[in-house]
């Protein structure tokens, strides 16, 4: 089972190391991890995708909560949240295959962001399955390089980090 975890953390040096160190030390499997500052410069948001059953998920959440720099941790389910990943894929092309690749890119509403005589860089955004499908379709042309951001996710609706933190401070 795959779980998406959102952590709001103090934007301080070393916090990411604390989080990733915890995962390796306790043998939790990270599938992806994305981090960036939020609308508040003092707070970063880490989105982590982990593999494991519900016991593993429970331990991950509890152990993350123990880290002093972590303000809030929660699981984001596919129902209550939206998640996206961005990938850049460098595909090999020649005059014979270029237009076919461009058609696929079109259908996926992806973008071509770099063009040379023998390669294209495709930017695709979507949920995990869309990115995987794109990768699969392009693989027969020869993927020269690929990079993905890992999932980032947000609660749907009006739940905000601001609100969560305000609530936390009242405790």
């Amino acid at each position, binding site marked *: 089972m795959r779980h998406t975890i959102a952590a709001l*953390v*103090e934007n301080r*040096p*070393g916090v990411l*190391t*604390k989080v990733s*160190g*915890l995962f390796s*030390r306790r043998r939790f499997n990270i599938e992806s991890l994305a981090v960036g500052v939020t609308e508040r410069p003092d707070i970063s948001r880490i989105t982590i995708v982990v593999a494991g059953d519900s*016991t593993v998920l*429970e*331990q991950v959440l*509890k*152990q993350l*909560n*123990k880290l*002093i*720099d*972590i*303000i809030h941790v929660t699981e984001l389910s596919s129902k209550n949240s939206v998640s996206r990943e961005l990938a850049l894929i460098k595909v090999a092309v020649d005059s014979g295959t270029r237009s076919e690749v461009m058609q696929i890119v079109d259908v996926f509403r992806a973008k071509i962001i770099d063009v040379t005589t023998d390669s294209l860089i495709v930017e695709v955004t979507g949920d995990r399955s869309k990115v995987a499908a794109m990768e699969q379709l392009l693989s027969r042309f020869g993927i020269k390089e690929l990079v993905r951001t890992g999932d980032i996710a947000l609660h749907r609706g009006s739940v905000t980090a601001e609100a969560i*933190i305000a609530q*936390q*401070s009242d*405790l």
Partner: protein
Amino acid sequence: MTNNITGAKALIESLKKENVEVIFGYPGGAMLPIYDELFDADIRHILVRHEQAAAHAADGYARATGKTGVCFATSGPGGTNLVTGIATAYMDSVPIVAVTGQVPRSLLGVDAFQEADITGITMPITKHNYLIKKAEDIPRVVKEAFYIASTGRPGPVLIDIPKDVTTDLLDFNYPKEVNLRSYKPIVAVNIEQLKQAASLITASEKPVIYAGGGIIISHAAEELLRFAELIKAPVTATLMGKGAFPDAHPLSVGMPGMHGTKYANYAIQESDLIIAVGARFDDRVTGKLESFAPSAKIIHIDIDPAEIKKNVRVDVPVVGDAKTVLTKLTSLIKQHQPKTSEWLKRVNKWKKDFPLHYKKNDMIKPQYVVECIYELYPDAVIVTEVGQNQMWAEQYFTYAKPRTFISSGGLGTMGYGFPAAIGAKIGRPDATVIDIAGDGSFQMNSQEIATAVQSEIPVVVAILNNGYLGMVHQWQELFFEERYSSTVIEESVDFVKLAEAYNAVGLRAVKPEEVKPILKEAVESGKPTIIDFIIDKTENVFPMVPAGAAINEIIDPE
């Protein structure tokens, strides 16, 4: 508020605000400004002979008193020498604050002389750590460090301070309270969970209370006693929980697990309800997990939610402070009429049938030494090393009160006992403090005799000298066809001469009748004393549950 003081002075002033009375430490280049401030501050500084001992002494002080222990070390090797001591405190949830010097800010990250990334190194073994980048952060960080170390589930906190931060000036203003939005250690007990726990308890016919170090940390020994007497359940206290429940109490069944009593292990295995309080189902306690307490429901009371369901299935989790939870539980069920008399009869029969035992001969038996220590000094604070000595110290002394048994449980650190005893004695100057030691373990920090002598700390070290790394030797005897690879250390050192070389008292006993007089001589000397008890080296620790076996599969030869 005091204007324009140095970072070093601010550190010392902050420690004073935290009522620190003693610091265990060792100086060095990066610590010069701090040690200069310490020179005429009215805080006692105990100069150790190895930084590992500073951390252990701070830890022993904390365990003996319940206060937060403090240690200092310089950058680089000073900090790395603290590591084992910090890890020991981390595993046993002991509140210590370690302050390390660091190279100046401009040299951070360039492999400067005596630079070590100590916050990186100690990340997995501290509850939290800090690298201070600005002098004005010192008061807040010290305030937070003591708060984090001592609240919730306690643990070590490290503060790393670059040398130039200690010479920078700041306006000193000690914060009145901490303001940490990300750390809220006080949890309200969930009443629904309490009610569920209460109903399991009132329905149970074969309950066992499994009490851990959390009872001692939360000052809940009295509450535990009241609770146990109310529900009339046998109590098994772990190594960390030693002293949480009086060993001599009729409901006490001694320690569970690998070297626990047969009757504690049998009781757990037949129980229909395990009530775990401030204990964490360590593998040394549970043995083979799949066969642990097969017919029992489990109530797990702990302040650290992450401990719940980490190792075993739990039917009712209760997150909260042991003292609060036990008080609430007791009042919820105070009308309860326990149905445990049959069960207690059965447990008492086991107690009678399978007592701890050893055979005497004309040599000194290690168990006898421990019994003599108890007979002469029943109120002593016992500190231990690691190995067979530690298990005998647990088994043959009758503990009655919290904070009288101090031992490295989680990490099992040889060399812990002696420096921890030094720390304990400083915290409890009126108590008789005895380190029950092994000849191997003692050699891991024997240099601290110099500390005890110089600082006039009269601890007694009772070495149970078997000439072996006994516990490992025992495993080789039982499970490795008596192939004693690197566990024989006999006659490698004359402990009496060693003590004398440091101007401490050195004594030796070889016959059983010498044990008591020599113990008295040691305690009455009022000086640091090392006693070399030459014991029967064939003696092993039993009962024993082999690694990986269920805890009722116990070896206990006649």
